[in-house]
């Protein structure tokens, strides 16, 4: 990872962010958080910010296939790794089964938690195609929803599993 120092002595790093199948070279600071690099450098504003302390899961992205809170990951630490955001789930304009299931089951109200919820659900279904309700609830325990009461979210993930 190359470092650059500008005229005023501020240090920048050249990072390669592999996001949703594309590879992007960006210039970030040591203290640039992954969530801010995604939102501000790559314009991928589907990834939300809530608590910014690891509690709410609004900023969930998949890092090498695993859900993490992008508010607690430095952009420089994600250099060269595979990142999936909510924008990366549809294929050729067609929504992912899980996204459709969220719509069909009215699992979305304000929608703020939805990108994180769907990514947590997606990672679960990738590793465990037939989860129990308990396993679904455990997988989304780090994603807080202030609107739905979770019932339809759990239903949507279970229904998507049944359809696979």
């Amino acid at each position, binding site marked *: 990872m190359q470092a650059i120092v500008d005229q005023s002595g501020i240090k920048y790093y050249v990072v390669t962010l592999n996001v949703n199948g594309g590879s992007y070279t960006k210039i970030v600071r040591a*203290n640039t*958080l992954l969530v801010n690099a995604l939102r501000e450098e790559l314009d991928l504003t589907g990834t939300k910010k809530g608590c910014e*302390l*690891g*509690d709410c*899961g609004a900023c969930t992205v998949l890092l090498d296939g695993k859900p993490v*809170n992008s508010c607690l990951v430095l952009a*420089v630490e994600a250099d060269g790794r595979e990142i999936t955001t909510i924008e990366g789930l549809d294929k050729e304009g067609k929504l992912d089964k899980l996204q459709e299931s969220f719509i069909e089951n009215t699992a979305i109200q304000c929608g703020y938690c939805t990108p994180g919820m769907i990514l947590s659900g997606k990672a679960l279904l990738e590793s465990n195609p037939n989860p129990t309700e308990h396993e679904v609830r455990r997988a989304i*325990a*780090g994603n807080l929803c202030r609107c739905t009461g979770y019932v339809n979210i759990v239903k949507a993930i279970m229904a998507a599993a049944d359809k696979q």
Partner: protein
Amino acid sequence: MYLPDFEYYAPATLAEACELLAKLGPKAKVLAGGTDVLSKMKQEQLSLEALVSIKKLDELTEIKSNGKGVVIGARATHNSLIDAPALQEKYPSICNAAKQMANNQIRNTGTVGGNCVNAVPSADLPPLFIALGAEVKLVGTSGERVVPLEDFFTGPNETVIKPDEILTEFIFKDQPFTGSNYLKFSLRRSGALAVAGVATAVVMDGDVCKEARIVMGAVAPTPLRAKEAEEILKGQKVTDELLEEAGNRAAAECKPISDLRGSEEYRRDLVRVLTKRSLRKSISEGHV
């Protein structure tokens, strides 16, 4: 919420990392998963000039059996503990302790080393690790040393680790323990720190308890062994009354504070109940 400025390093070798830490001094710290250090920096609870990332030291993520016991690399994440065949085989109790931690996202980033060096009294792994006799390997510029985890903690957020040292691994030498577990009480099932936690490990011979270790978390400045309660059990035939007595003794030995998660009295009572329950499980269910 933005992070203040700092210098960032990602050395390629352990030796380089130690040299960097030695050069930078106490204003620099190791960056492992960052779940603790970055949230503290955001909240201005910690001010640092540099972070030395250990992300390139992949050898620190290994979890393996080596004939003499089990070794867990300091950079292993909590979720990797849950999935590790070596632990599922020997100490499923460690997998189950990790399952009770944080939430999935944090378990994918947070590391075992961070959980200990952090030295938060409520940290979930140290009680069970101490009960199972874990030692930690600390590597610095002047060589390496091995310290029992029991002697590692010196106070809240304080350990014996020197500024140039990196915790590289946890060593669990084979021991005669027949059962162990960690029980945690928290205000929610997920993403909540322990109000109190108790780990036990026992050596049973029929219905006689030859040895017991009881380690309490979140009820003293550091994880604390209930040594008097352990003595009560040693060499005795296990009865309900004996477990009751051990629970009462552990409750008397702990030194909890009152805070927003629970009062001193409440914590003592939790220790009494958790000690009894944890012992009963260790005695009759093995490493769970």
